[in-house]
């Protein structure tokens, strides 16, 4: 076979084979996406691999149940004399403004805290060692620790934080305490 002919065969194979392959892969991706939208998340078998979780979009926005609570993270610290402080909010949520529809970087932090608290409250009931080693616990702990270091001039002996399901603007509903941390000794490098 001459070089020109070989090159023609390869080009033709590519012109047919590549589009075919792309079409089949895209169709398989669509079927896998459809198969991973069950209302009950126990049926997320297709999505159970962490990488398929990245590749397959999850279209179940605000479904089946939207968030109807804020996660409110509160903390208190113990000073050198052993006196506990009053409980304080670790994060304040700014009131809604129209400009936030265009520019709202703080939402990223709020969403990050929301995701970490969701994961943390799901881990309640786990073995305490596992819970305290979990990524969500450590993220919230470190977040609170940084807030304290920004607000308290002298390093305290340690601190404790709680995660509360707060009804937001609705003052007729009561907050629900979801998680109370252990006493966290202050780390010298904090």
């Amino acid at each position, binding site marked *: 076979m001459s070089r020109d002919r070989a090159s023609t065969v390869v080009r033709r194979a590519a*012109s047919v084979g*590549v*589009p075919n392959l*792309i*079409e089949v892969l*895209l*169709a*398989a991706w*669509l*079927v896998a996406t*459809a*198969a991973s*939208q*069950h*209302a*009950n998340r*126990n*049926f*997320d*078998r*297709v999505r159970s691999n*962490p*990488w398929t979780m*990245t590749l397959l979009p*999850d*279209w*179940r926005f*605000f*479904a*089946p*149940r*939207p*968030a*109807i*609570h*804020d996660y409110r993270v509160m903390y208190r610290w113990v000073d050198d004399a052993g006196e506990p402080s009053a409980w304080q909010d670790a994060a304040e*949520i700014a009131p*809604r403004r*129209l400009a*936030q*529809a265009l*520019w*709202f*970087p703080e939402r*990223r*932090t709020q969403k*990050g*805290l929301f*995701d970490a608290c969701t994961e943390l409250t799901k881990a309640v*009931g786990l*073995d305490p060692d596992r819970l305290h080693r*979990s*990524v969500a616990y*450590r*993220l919230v702990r*470190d977040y609170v620790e940084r807030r304290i*270091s920004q607000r308290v001039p002298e390093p305290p002996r340690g601190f404790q934080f709680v995660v509360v399901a707060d009804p*937001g*603007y*609705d003052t007729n509903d009561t907050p629900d305490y979801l998680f109370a941390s252990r006493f966290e000794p202050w780390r010298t490098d904090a």
Partner: protein
Amino acid sequence: MNRLSPPAAWRQALVIGVVPKSRFAALSRMERLSAATHLMSSAEQLARPQALERGGLNDWSVIVDGTPGSRPVRSVLNWVARPRVTRAIHVGRVMAAVVLVAPGRRRGVRLAANVVLATSSAVLHRRYWYGTDGADQVSMLAQGLATVARAGQRSPRIVDAALSAASLQGMMSYAASGLVKVASGPWGTGDAIIGVTRTRTYGDLRTWQLLRGRRNVAKALEIAVVALECVAPVVYIGGGRLTRPYVAAATVLHLGIAKVMSLGRFLTSFCSLHAPMIYTTAGRRNGLQYDRVTALAFGGGIGLVGAAAGHQALTRRTVERARGDEQRIELSDGNEISYRVVGDRAMPPEATGCAPVVMLEHGLASTPEHWEWIVRSLREHPGGATPTIVTWHRSGYGPSSHRPRTVRTMEDLAASSTELIERIASDRDVVLVGYSLGGYLAVLAAAKTQADVRGVVLVDTSHPDELRRSEKQRLGAERMEGAMTSMARSLSFGSGILLRCPPWVKALPIEVQRIALAQVRDPRTWRAGVREWDATQRDFDSKPQLQPLTCPMLVLTAGATRRDDPVQYELHAEMLELGDGGQHVTIDGANHDSIVTSRAHAAQVAEHINEFIATCMGDSRVSSNTNQRVVDAASTSEPPS
């Protein structure tokens, strides 16, 4: 390709005016709107550098511990996650997005910009695991498809394939969200929108104040939103004539969401999928030549339905075959029960060294395989003579049959247990062991049977007062009831193929994982659970008085139950008082599942059971008049909170 006049190019760049009817107009609109979303997203991340540091919610030194992947993948992610590299990537993303948003039609440049945005989105996805949202997901998807289309731009077939996939994903994004809301949840009652708008994170004070006293308006809004989402497939009907009104309505929805919930990036990201929807649903009218993806996906969907039906049939066959050494017996209620004997039940007491028959009663919506580690430990390390062990499937579970109206009360369930005990172990001493609801059943059966019950063991048992006295149990029961009904319904429609393997199945010995998983994927297991739960609730509501037993008891409580639900721990202690002496032991570190399914915890449970059996049979170590509570040393150091 015709060059656009400068004003037309800018109009297209600003994605206004023109309805994208042609292949390249649709592609251009998709990649521009999606790039605008990336632009905003990266600008937001650059504006909050502290998020990457310690105490930030994207601190990689913490997140890396929850990130899966092989060593090369993790090496790449570790490099990408260096704050300087992450910031440099964002700067590159901003530049690539600007290139795509601005007018300019050079294929190579646009392809490169698309590649930068698509690959960086995928690589940064884990980095921003906490704080990422649906707009990021949609823009990553759209930019990935734009990359495929630009790479194969010389082949209209490849561009059409990418646009068809984008269109189908766009349609699915609405339809799936709507259908899941219809299937369950509070949508349609007014509670969903009022509930969301009251939150400070996603809500809006003025909107909430407007809606809270106008439930009918909230309800109408919810119905309108869900209806709009559910009817998304209509864009594929009538040659796409409904697509433009549909995307117009959807855009209004996204504008509302942007205003009320401050989710502005959702507007640009979702609208990026509208252009492919308009182009592809009109088919040949817009010049679509190749729509094999839609046909292939449709065919794949039908194939998936067929595979689901086949999987369900195979699952049922696996359940019916069970482990192969089961025996069957027809009880007086007409139900044919499957049970399994480990050891020889026919052996006379002299031959077994006075070892009893140990009857294991499984929990609600549970399987006899839950007992597997305990069965093995009881046989391998007996405290005295090796016991004969019986596990069984209650009516409706596994291969056991269920005749209508035979399981209506706890008395019906206890009667089945009692009859089975008496028919297969009448000539032997019996020890009853029950887990969860099976524990309560074991108490009822022990009080009712004529067999010689020498002891009762309750493993993290249910108590008839638990729903009244323990808020944690009451809330758990509400969730469980909904979950069981949902599982039964979904599995009846053949969704078993999509059901994840629960962690407790993976904790069991490998030889029984297949049969245990088949039972979890069998809708009959969940229907039996729903039936039994109905009977249980009626029984608990009637405030039954439990009869004292004439044998000693061993009550085992999971450490997590004791720690998290002190009321349930107290109820377990009260259960112990029904017996003629006994012990209450906490299995430290165990939770309600792992107390039977974890090898280590099951070994501890089996050790306590073996000691208890030896005591019961030797009748030497248990005081018959006092309740002896033995709590292990570890748990005494941590009193219930």
